[in-house]
């Protein structure tokens, strides 16, 4: 059944990481990505790995669960590795056969690139594992609010995300129902060539779109009936508040960036 698909990948919990303000977690994720790109050398990467595993430990997420988030992209990771390995230029040839040549520099580059990808995947999936989509939306809205004067529609974006989250399961159910109804009328969604198959989807897609529009229409009326008139003058039931732990977490990630920068350029500074 289509409705079996879990929405998002929120893993409920009550850990320190779960309790952090969503804004803090989004910022940490962004700063960590900066740190990844500052990293150079084995020590840097060692520290980054340590940091990620510390967060996983603190979040009390099952390690396997977090590692599984690499799975959907493993082909890309392996490809990155292989391409760099064979195309990297360098002096120290480790292995060569006909015109294939693997250099130490290439190997290092490949490792570095795939490690960056894995770290990126891990940190962003920790964010989504520990933050429910709704809270995440609140966080994004709050972070974007200052940019409103530059024309960023923070409230509207957040409202759209909220409604999308609300209606995805409903529309999945609907898809399931229409698919069954058309199958009972002899529709075939799985055979034929590409063109044929695309054409066969029409009896599913047209009712689905009509239904989505009808729902949108109904929802708009219902929202208006409940006094909705855009973001102006709205209050919120949940105001986001920074606690001590948020400041501590942000400070930690700044230290991390500092460390990465120091390892990268520190020697140059010493020379100066």
């Amino acid at each position: 059944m289509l409705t079996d698909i879990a929405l998002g990948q929120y893993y409920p919990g009550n850990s320190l990481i779960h309790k952090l303000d969503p804004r803090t977690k989004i910022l940490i994720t962004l700063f960590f990505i900066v740190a990844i790109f500052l990293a150079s050398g084995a020590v840097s990467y060692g520290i980054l790995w340590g940091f990620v595993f510390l967060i996983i430990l603190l979040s009390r997420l099952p390690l396997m669960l977090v590692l599984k988030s690499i799975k959907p992209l493993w082909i890309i990771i392996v490809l990155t590795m292989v391409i760099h390995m064979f195309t990297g230029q360098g002096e120290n040839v480790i292995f060569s056969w006909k015109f294939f040549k693997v250099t130490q520099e290439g190997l290092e580059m490949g490792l570095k690139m795939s490690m960056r990808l894995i770290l990126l995947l891990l940190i962003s999936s920790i964010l989504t594992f520990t933050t429910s989509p709704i809270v995440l939306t609140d966080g994004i809205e709050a972070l974007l609010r200052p940019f409103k004067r530059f024309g960023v529609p923070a409230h509207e974006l957040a409202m759209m995300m909220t409604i999308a989250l609300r209606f995805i399961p409903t529309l999945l159910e609907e898809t399931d129902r229409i698919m069954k109804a058309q199958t009972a009328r002899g529709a075939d969604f799985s055979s034929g060539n590409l063109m044929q198959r695309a054409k066969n989807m029409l009896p599913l897609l047209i009712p689905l779109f009509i239904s989505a529009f009808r729902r949108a229409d109904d929802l708009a009326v219902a929202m208006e009936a409940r006094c909705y008139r855009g973001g102006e003058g709205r209050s919120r039931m949940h105001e986001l508040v920074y606690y001590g732990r948020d400041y501590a977490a942000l400070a930690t990630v700044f230290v991390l960036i500092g460390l990465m920068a120091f390892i990268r350029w520190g020697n140059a500074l010493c020379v100066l």
Partner: protein
Amino acid sequence: MQTIIEVKNLTHVYTDSENKEIKALDGINLEIRQGEFVAVIGANGSGKSTLARHFNALQRPSEGVCLIEGMDTTVEENLWDIRQHVGMVFQNPDNQIVAAIVEEDVAFGPENIGVPTAEIRTRVDAALAAVGMSDYAKHAPHLLSGGQKQRVAIAGVLALEPKCIVLDEPTAMLDPQGRKEIVTTVKKLNREKGITVVYITHYMEEALQADRIIVMGEGKLKMQGTPKEVFSHVRELYALGLEAPLAAKIADDLRQSGLNLQQGIITNEELAESICR
């Protein structure tokens, strides 16, 4: 008692897809008093839903006036006051819940009118308690039953603290269990909190719960009175595409055949009593 909704010579005209002018409502005169439980019945296309939408200014009269607490629905400045006073619950429970968590959805209305954060919390808790959904505050709406979803929708309206709730066929898409839940909830809100209820339905067993029934047909107000008065007009109701309770129908048939039965029979007990007297 104070009048909360007053409708004078209300006419609503719209143009259909073939550019024909259609009178959805035709010269309606009506008064609903504070604290009343009024059911509106009528076949599909009788104008009952259009009428309901005038009560919280989702529609404006083509002719005549619709006054909510004395406020004219055509005056733009009154719009948000009117919508706070008269809440509206719609037919499809799925299409009126905005947020992906029950309590967030109930908070939607108060947030829109800028209620202070601390007060929203109390309003949300009170509204969920009033419809018996407190235990589901943190649930996702799509996993609830139809009756539960519809109760969340009612809570969402209650959080605006309205004087009147208009429900537009709230049970049309529910199973018998869900229908019972809604009727019980609405009745309780009316009796215990004194909220005025306008309940649109085509289930006559639900209309039986009301103080007064208004019968719509072809955009006109055809009949009104207590359930006993209205459901005694079995043949008139039938002509309007509606039905009366079985006891009223059989009583009417038996009277036709010459049996002498008392007037105003609508329940099985009344009929059996009257026959076996």
